């Protein structure tokens, strides 16, 4: 499947000598050196990315790392200096003024850090602005705007002025304005940074729900790692205009590409980020309900695990037995008589922290395929050692960070 949005070798230089600066950047000079030699700032430095349809792609970096510039290159609020930018396979940088306007009208909409609501227009008029620009009639655009406002929980505020709303509500209006045009791509430049943490958490959850409903592809900018981990299907870490690492959240946290990324991630509680998918294995034996305890014990010892799953003939989970249960059981007893029901199950992206009880119970966790059969399993021993390793790593990094 072709990417919804892709960039190849994108550069943006602010200042007097853009071409020269790009040449230097291609030659490997860094941002400071280029600034010293040309007086130009390389804000986006050779960014390559592919965003799949319906993905939430998060770009994270410190202030000044070029995030806002990058996201504005996508709808050409800022004109890239060089590189290629495709949306649905169409070359955006070749588009003429009208083509660009069509893109903004129909495909790409945007949510801003400081909301950027029009203070002289009501909430509904704000939400309807994209439709007004498109030339949609007053009644239809009001209906769509109110629908979008209802989706963000502000249906009752349609005729208020933005100044009468709290910050969180204002950003919901910003979100409704962007969603009212049914965008395929939603650009969000630190949309929740100006909100206080509790409201930010709500907004993040709501965004996830809205993304399901509107089926948009989202490019989300943030400087908050927790936010990135909560929202991102993939995260890019940006520094001095360049991507340092791109990957799914657990990879960013579990295997930071360098110290810069590790520094970002060191404050994160890994047990909330590392997922079952990362430690699950497919090579664990399964028990049949009719097996005898003695045979089951042998399998357990051979596999060097602390518990085994019991499955029916179709591979669907029935329950599990732990090492302690097997040791205490009559060797001739049937597995089905001593097993715990039902089996614990989880998803590939369930964080370890969510199944801590499994480790405590000594019960394995089953990961199911889409027919409900056991696809892989996580042994309680693996679970505990992964947790321990994560904790230890957290400690080390914290110690290392302060040293």
């Amino acid at each position, binding site marked *: 499947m072709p990417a919804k949005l892709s960039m190849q070798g994108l550069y943006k230089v602010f200042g007097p000598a853009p071409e020269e600066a790009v040449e230097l950047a291609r030659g490997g000079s860094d941002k400071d050196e280029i600034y010293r030699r040309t007086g130009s700032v390389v804000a986006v430095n050779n960014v390559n990315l592919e965003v799949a349809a319906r993905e939430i792609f998060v770009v994270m970096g410190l202030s000044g790392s070029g995030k806002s510039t990058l996201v504005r290159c996508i709808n050409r609020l800022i004109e890239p200096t060089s590189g290629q930018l495709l949306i649905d396979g169409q070359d955006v940088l070749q588009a003429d003024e009208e083509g660009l306007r069509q893109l*903004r009208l129909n495909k790409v909409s945007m949510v801003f850090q400081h909301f950027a609501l029009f203070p002289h227009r009501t909430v509904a008029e704000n939400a309807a602005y994209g439709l007004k620009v498109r030339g949609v009639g007053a009644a239809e655009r009001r209906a769509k705007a109110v629908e979008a406002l209802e989706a963000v929980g502000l249906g009752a505020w349609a005729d208020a*002025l933005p100044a*009468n709303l709290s*910050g969180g509500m204002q950003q919901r209006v910003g979100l409704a304005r962007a969603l009212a045009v049914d965008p395929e791509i939603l650009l969000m430049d630190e949309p929740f940074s100006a909100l206080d943490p509790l409201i930010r958490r709500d907004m993040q959850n709501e965004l996830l729900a809205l993304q399901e409903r509107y089926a948009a592809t989202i490019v989300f900018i943030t400087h908050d790692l927790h936010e990135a981990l909560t929202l991102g299907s993939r995260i890019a870490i940006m520094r001095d205009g360049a991507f340092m690492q791109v990957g799914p959240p657990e990879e960013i946290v579990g295997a930071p590409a360098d110290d810069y990324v590790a520094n970002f991630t060191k404050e994160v509680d890994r047990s909330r980020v590392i997922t079952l998918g990362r430690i699950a294995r497919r090579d664990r034996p399964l028990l049949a309900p009719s097996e005898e305890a003695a045979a089951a014990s042998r399998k357990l010892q051979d596999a060097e695990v602390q518990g085994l799953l019991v499955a029916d003939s179709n591979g669907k989970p029935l329950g599990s037995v732990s090492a302690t249960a097997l040791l205490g059981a009559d060797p001739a007893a049937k597995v089905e008589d001593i097993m715990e029901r039902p089996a614990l199950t989880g998803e590939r992206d369930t964080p370890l922290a969510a199944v801590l009880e499994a480790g405590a119970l000594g019960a394995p966790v089953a990961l199911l395929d889409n027919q409900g059969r056991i696809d892989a399993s996580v042994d309680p021993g693996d679970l505990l050692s992964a947790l321990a390793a994560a904790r230890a790593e957290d400690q080390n990094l914290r110690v290392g960070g302060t040293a």
Partner: protein
Amino acid sequence: MTDFLSWLSPSHYGRLPFADWVQWLVRDWLVPNFRPAFQAMQWPVDQVLRGLEAALLAIPFPVFTLVLLLLAWRFAGRGVALFTLVAMLFIDAIGVWAETMTTLAMILTAVFFCAIAGIPLGIWSARSDRVAATLRPVLDIMQTIPPFVYLVPIVMLFGVGMVPGVIATIIFALPPIIRLTSLGIRQVSEELVEAAIAFGATQRQILFDVQIPLAMRTIMAGLNQTLMLALSMAVIGALIGAGGLGLTVYTGLGRLDVGRAAVGGVGIVLIAIVLDRITQGLGDPSLRDGTWTFSGSVRRLLGLAPPRMQEKLGT
């Protein structure tokens, strides 16, 4: 000592015929070559002025006073409305009602053309730094040249009468509306303009949806200043044949008739105060609910309250 230093003064060696140059430029070049063009410029001013003056003089005193009172009440509050009533009664009582209407027609005509020329120029200079840089010295000159200086070429080009008076007034009163329109538009937050662009707005849509509405308060302040400057030209305009209250003052001056001059002066001052308060009210949202919109103003005028907001929510 002074004699000794006189060799440093250029006038010691003769005189530069600057006056002759200007005389030549205006009388022998500008007037013969461009008189028709200037005459043509006169036409629209003449039309508007005549129409307005005829209308104002045709409206009976009580009707006019009532309308002005209503405007004052809606846009500037009860106090100003009361003041307007008293001022109009006084103007009529001292016998200069007709002159006041003539002056008002001239002022409004001048302000009308200032707005028509000044607001687009202001918008243009807000959008282009080059235009702004070109316009700035021109506006500076317009604001510093004493109006008496350009009365002469105006008379040479346009003759004497009401219309030349209005044209002199336009030149004098134009700068603030240009400057403040430009300022107002440049002050509109970059982020809001960016948001409009991001949603696909055209330059025109950005201008009318975002920039002008948000600059309206400043533009109105410019209009107010332009109006006040126009009023201050009432007497000077009388020098070149404009009538109205200015003429009353001017004739009073010529005959050393203090009373007559005072009658004209008081008329000008009263009309200035009333117009100032009303136009300030137009541009000041604190006197209204919400921001300036045309329909909102009409609603206000008709006494229909615009939709009010519920109590403000905390963050």
